[in-house]
Every structure is written in C-alpha cells, then in structure tokens.
C-alpha cells in the first residue's frame, strides 16, 4: 500500500491532514513534521484502522 497524506486547506487557512499507508506512529510523525511551525493543532486522532493494526501486530507477537 502506497504511503499518502492528503492535506485539505480551507479558505481560512485551516488544514486537515489525513494519512494512509503508514504503519504505527509514522503517520502521525510525518504529518507533524510537515505541519511543524505552522500553528497549533486544534484536533487530532486515530481512525479505527490504526487500532486494528496495533491489535493485529500484538496478536502476531504472542
């Protein structure tokens, strides 16, 4: 799966970023690196897919 981040920039300068194809915390780190210095984050979170991946990973390790 290709790594991709989509930034939607509204007319007021508000940016909404969504990442896909990244594993673990890399998606969050990459978004923060690109938006660094732009402004304070007003909201952030993970989708269910993020937690499902962690669950699968832990199951494999056991």
């Amino acid at each position, binding site marked *: 799966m290709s790594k991709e981040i989509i930034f939607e920039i509204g007319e007021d300068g*508000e*940016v909404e970023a969504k990442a896909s194809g990244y594993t673990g915390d890399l998606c969050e780190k990459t978004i923060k690196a690109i938006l660094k210095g732009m402004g304070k984050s007003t909201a*952030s979170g993970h989708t269910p897919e993020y937690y499902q991946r962690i669950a699968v990973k832990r199951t494999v390790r056991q």
Partner: protein
Amino acid sequence: MSHWEKVAVKDLTPFIATSVPVTLLKSMASKVNPTDCALGDAAKALGCELLVNAEARSYRSETFPYVIRLPGESYDVGLKVEDGKLTPYWDTYSHLGKNVIAVLGDGLKKLMQEAAAAHIVRQAKANGQTIERRMVGKKIVLVSRG
C-alpha cells in the same frame, strides 16, 4: 486513513522575515529559511506584493506589522493577526464602501490559504515527499507521497 490532524494558521510571523526586504527575500530565496518566503510567495500568487521594508514604513507599525499592496490599486492595506486571524486595517478604507472591503476580505482569506499551502509544499519537499496540488471546490488539496 489511520491518522488525522487539524491545524490552523495561528500566526503568520513564522512565515516571514520582517527585518528583510521582500525584494531581497526573492533574490536570496535559496539562502534563507524556506518558510521565510512563504507569505511573500502567497502574496505573489494572488498578484499582490508583500511589503516588509522601508517602503512600507509609513503604514507599518507594531499593531499592523504586515502591508499588502493590491494589484492595480494605488492603496495598500495594513494587516495584523488578531485572535488567530489575519485582520485588515479597515479604518483606512471606510470611504471605499463595503463592496471593496468584501473583496479585500476575500483576498485575505485566500492569502491565508495560500500561505498554509506554500508552507506545506516546502516542508513536504524538505521531508523528501512528492506533492501534487489540485483545487476541490474552494479548498486546496495537496497529496503528499513518500
């Protein structure tokens, strides 16, 4: 999608080097911090000129630190950041009517949008990502791949 984040431009100060003339910024673009030029690039994309040097001294103040020269017009507009939003110095234009103010306001919104886009493009490229730009309605959509 595994992660999402919302960020708003809170202050344009990081995007601009207030002590360096914009003309110099353009010629030194490769030598200065890339983010320093973002607001100047955004103004240029709108056909405006950002004044940050002695040329704008009569307008610039600590209250209104930025000055935008509008295309084809003989007047400038002073700007300040208030409550996280770029605010124009309306008093200067009270004689021009509400329509002009509305146009200026719309232009300033686009400036905020372009400033945010320019910042993301520069940071993404510095991060080794390729980036595509398109318009979806009134939104700028940037797709970063790496």
